[in-house]
């Protein structure tokens, strides 16, 4: 994982109050205990940090953490391009 991906997972751990060690990229959001309220906090924090906009329906709770990070990466890269 890139250092930015690590940073994204740090933000998720911080905002959703989930133990960093439990954030396995292969795990689904619903399986790591990330509920819809946590998700809005995570999205807000990432939008703030990277100056991007994440559409409301970008993620579902059946997405894996790795898929979420990949989608966010794409949005950040699109902004930088």
């Amino acid at each position, binding site marked *: 994982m890139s250092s930015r991906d690590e940073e994204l997972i740090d933000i998720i751990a*911080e*905002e959703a*109050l989930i133990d960093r060690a439990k954030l396995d990229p292969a795990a689904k959001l619903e399986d790591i205990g990330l509920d819809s*309220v946590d998700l*809005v*906090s995570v*999205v*807000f924090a990432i*939008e703030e940090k990277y100056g991007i906009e994440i559409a409301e329906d970008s993620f579902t709770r059946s997405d894996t953490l790795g898929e979420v990070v990949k989608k966010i990466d794409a949005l950040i890269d699109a902004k930088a391009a």
Partner: protein
Amino acid sequence: MAERLVVTGMGAVSALGFTAEENWAAARDGVTGIKIQPFDPGPHGPASVDFPAAPVKDAALPALEAALGKRIGNSLDPFAAHALMAAHEALGQARLLGAPLGHRAAAIMGNGIGGLRTLEKAYERLFGLKATKVHPLTIPRVMVSAPVSAIAIEFGITGPVFATASACASSAHAIAQAAALITAGLADMAVAGGSEAMASPGGLRAWDSLGAMSESTCRPFSAGRDGMIVGEGGAAIVLERESHAEARGATPLAYYVGAGMSSDAFHWTQPTLEGAVTAMRQACEPGGLLDDDEVLIAAHGTGTDLNDKNEAAAIKHLFGDKAAHHPVTATKSAHGHLIGASAALQAVIGLKALAAGLAPPILGYLGEDPECAGIDLVLGPKARAIKARSLLVNAFAFGGLNCSLAFRAA
């Protein structure tokens, strides 16, 4: 006759410490939590300014997280975190942690203004950064019932749960409401008190603009007093029906014996003698405090000109010749004014004082104000031995809302 109510647990967090015992020890030993410090509103506000205040130390949050064994982070505004910390300690002392407390338990906590720090951050984004979005959890963090919801969720309290708001009397009203709910048969036990976190750049500016804040420190009942000092924190007690406490082998720390409430219906910032006397009298009558030779009085004692002279007059008016024998403490001179949490913290410190037979000293006293003379002020620097077995706690709020509480030693 209604069954007696017992206090079986106490918790407190303020500038004086993170537990009831730390708060009591500091108050007893004449330690102050008030100091002059900078309040910086950030790049979008005016320059940083120094104010005297008594904020809670930052280490409170890690201490709470360690006590609960989980992360809190910024998921709660400090005013809710302080409430949770005090409630956890009180329930722990009452030996009520572990299983969910269920529908026969209540949680009633007061506060004056809600999650001000969270609101300030949201407004900094809108009006300073011109951002279009604020944190998505702004509402649940700001709402005045956030502390009780946090407590209910944490401890599985599924009975009556709500917040009370009456500015500086909020936690006195909360305790009185909790007792009334138990007496009415709606619950067997309650965790009750209050919390506040107004020692923020905006909060301090607002108090300063009102002209209510001292430039140095809180000097209750003293000549030369010049206002209140903003403190913050949380305090809670566990109240139970006596038979409920006995059945589970809980140790009574004190008895709750009455509350009195009144409204001045007069002025936003000027108190009335009648309002204060009515609340105190109603609180004292059921438990017979008016006949006691010595009552420990935990005064509202804000250090403002108007409150202190009105409160001294009210004590003299109510107790007559006995007034000179009732030791009067005013611990806002140590922990500052916790606004909605003050009465609960003063109840906790007062109950500790009764148990120890020691009244904590009034700090910052410069000399006698003739308008506050005739009452027995406990002056520093050290605690004074007392014989009192009963406690009267006063809370007289802006907007003319008064609530007094009465307790007896176990």
